[in-house]
């Protein structure tokens, strides 16, 4: 039984820039008679930060689950690293994609270091194991948690817990990162930091899909923005193309205005007040 033996060392090749790391093709998800996704097609490429935005209940987390291989679509296909998602074994998938869910409870009082080290589990018994210590130290440093390494998870604040979960995902060193609202519990500084980390991973060749609510954050940091509305893809493209007042006003069912940042020229999206 594989559970009791070490997994064979079939290690992923680093992707080339522009490779399609995850692809949803005409994906339909129906749960309990409700159509959560209705024919969505989206690709995540190596080297890009793709922001996924949209109103509550638009299907962002569902799409992320589908791209992660957690949820099999009712219709349509999903491939990860060029192969159909169901054809990957659990551990092979874990070496290729890391997922940060919205909520990350930990049942026992593990310390921060132990939680981050769990991110290295997919590499147990492979040559990549030699990189464990560096990857964990880097993930802690990147999330400014080095000083918290011996604190236990339940004693951390909400934001610190969120950063610990992110550090675990970073330590996993997968080339496809799927982050579901990584900035939700964070202050301004750490929000910027998370997106800078996403950018750094992308420039090292990873593909990053990040679900965001703050359109300004998405416009400032993402290469492309995908807008989901009521289970369908309303628009996908560079921030300048997507951040149009009439599109976003329709999607969010609230009037918005888009202005240009005086220094960077990036679009800023504000609700009309």
């Amino acid at each position, binding site marked *: 039984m594989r*559970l009791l033996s070490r997994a064979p060392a079939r290690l992923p090749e680093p992707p080339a820039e522009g490779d399609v790391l995850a692809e949803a093709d005409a994906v339909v998800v129906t749960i309990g008679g409700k159509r959560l996704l209705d024919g969505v097609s989206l690709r995540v490429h190596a080297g890009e930060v793709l922001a996924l935005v949209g109103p509550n209940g638009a299907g962002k987390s569902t799409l992320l689950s589908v791209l992660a291989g957690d949820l099999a679509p009712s219709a349509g296909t999903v491939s990860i690293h060029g192969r159909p998602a169901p054809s990957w074994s659990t*551990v092979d998938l874990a070496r290729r994609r890391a997922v940060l869910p919205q909520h*990350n409870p930990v*049942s026992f009082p*593990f310390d921060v*270091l132990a939680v981050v080290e*769990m991110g290295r589990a997919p590499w147990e018994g492979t040559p990549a194991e030699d990189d464990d210590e560096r990857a964990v130290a880097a993930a802690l440093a990147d999330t400014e948690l080095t000083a918290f*390494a011996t604190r236990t998870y339940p004693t951390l604040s909400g934001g610190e817990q969120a950063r610990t979960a992110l550090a675990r995902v970073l330590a996993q060193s997968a080339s496809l990162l799927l982050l579901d609202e990584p900035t939700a519990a964070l202050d301004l500084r750490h929000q910027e930091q998370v997106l800078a980390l996403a950018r750094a991973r992308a420039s090292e060749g990873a593909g990053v899909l990040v679900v965001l609510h703050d359109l300004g954050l998405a416009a400032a940091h993402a290469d492309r923005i995908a807008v989901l509305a009521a289970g369908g893809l309303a628009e996908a493209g560079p921030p300048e193309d997507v951040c149009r007042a009439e599109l976003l006003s329709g999607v969010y069912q609230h009037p918005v205005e888009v202005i240009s940042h005086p220094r960077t020229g990036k679009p800023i999206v504000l609700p009309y007040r």
Partner: protein
Amino acid sequence: MTATVSPPVTSGGDLVPPPRRRPARVAALFTVLTVGLVMVSIASAAVGQFGIPASQVVGSVLNRIGIDVLAAPADPFAEAALWDVRFPRVVLALLVGGVLGVCGALMQGCFGNPLAEPGVVGVSSGAAVGACLSIVFGWTFLGAFTTPALAFATGLVTTLAVYVLARSKGRAGVVTMILTGVAVNAVANAAIAFLVFAGDQAAREQIVFWQLGSLAGSRWAYVATIAPLVAVCVAVSMLLARRLDLLALGDRQARHLGVDVESLRLVTIVVVAVAVSAAVSYSGIIGFVGLVVPHLIRMITGPGHRVLIPASLLGGALLLAAADLLARNAFHYADLPIGMLTALVGGPFFFWLLLRTRRREGGWT
């Protein structure tokens, strides 16, 4: 002027290794447990209605393995009492206690909640039903192993029932788990009550004492049948340890890290059912060891299963050997039921645990 702050670090910079945990604490724990085990075992073999000096106990053991340092008891009756009555009982106490400790840790890790215990979720009473069946109907189709075998079968079925019933959306909530345990225990107790009603005088007496839990009448044959199961259970648990750690993150997160969650749960539950059913089939129901021991260990060395599992093995063995020493010697000419003793300590501990968790985390859902 615009204030500037340093940009966030990215993985290229100089890395400060994170502070390490103290391995000294783990070493100290294992030393204390091992020394405690040896002391309690010797004391347990020495003390009794027929006192044998501790030096002679040690001497007798050393003589058998060919080391002539200390004198064995000169009296052949004392030698026989040691080897035919006390040693099997001490060893059985160690094995049963160790199994209960390890299985408590496994169940808690497997369900990702600290209240899971073979007894709490009704595995022990499930095994009791099988044992009672064989006692009442006098079944002997598997010879002397009929009772353990039936206890094992019903124990396994009960465990799987609890597993299936308590899960929803991939997690077994604490309240659901305890209520499932209540329900399963109720049904099992009803079955036991019926069997008591249906049985004759001798069977009733046997069932009552089986349920109280006792290590009286331990024999080497019992030790020989459960020792291999204990060894397998501990070995498999150690192989599963790192994956059990990952289950603390939740099923979905564990799967993202490459854990085949369903197989892991199934293997864990089968290991627990095999080991616990085998243990309680000889000793009767001994509650709370599996609950108390892993908790105490976690408070000392943290929740990592690679330390927790072997430490719970030693801790469970130590606790039950000490409880048995007390059970045999608290009253003259009376052998107290050991299950009663562990419940007497375990019940209040369980309650304290509930209060403590409620204070810290605002209760369970």
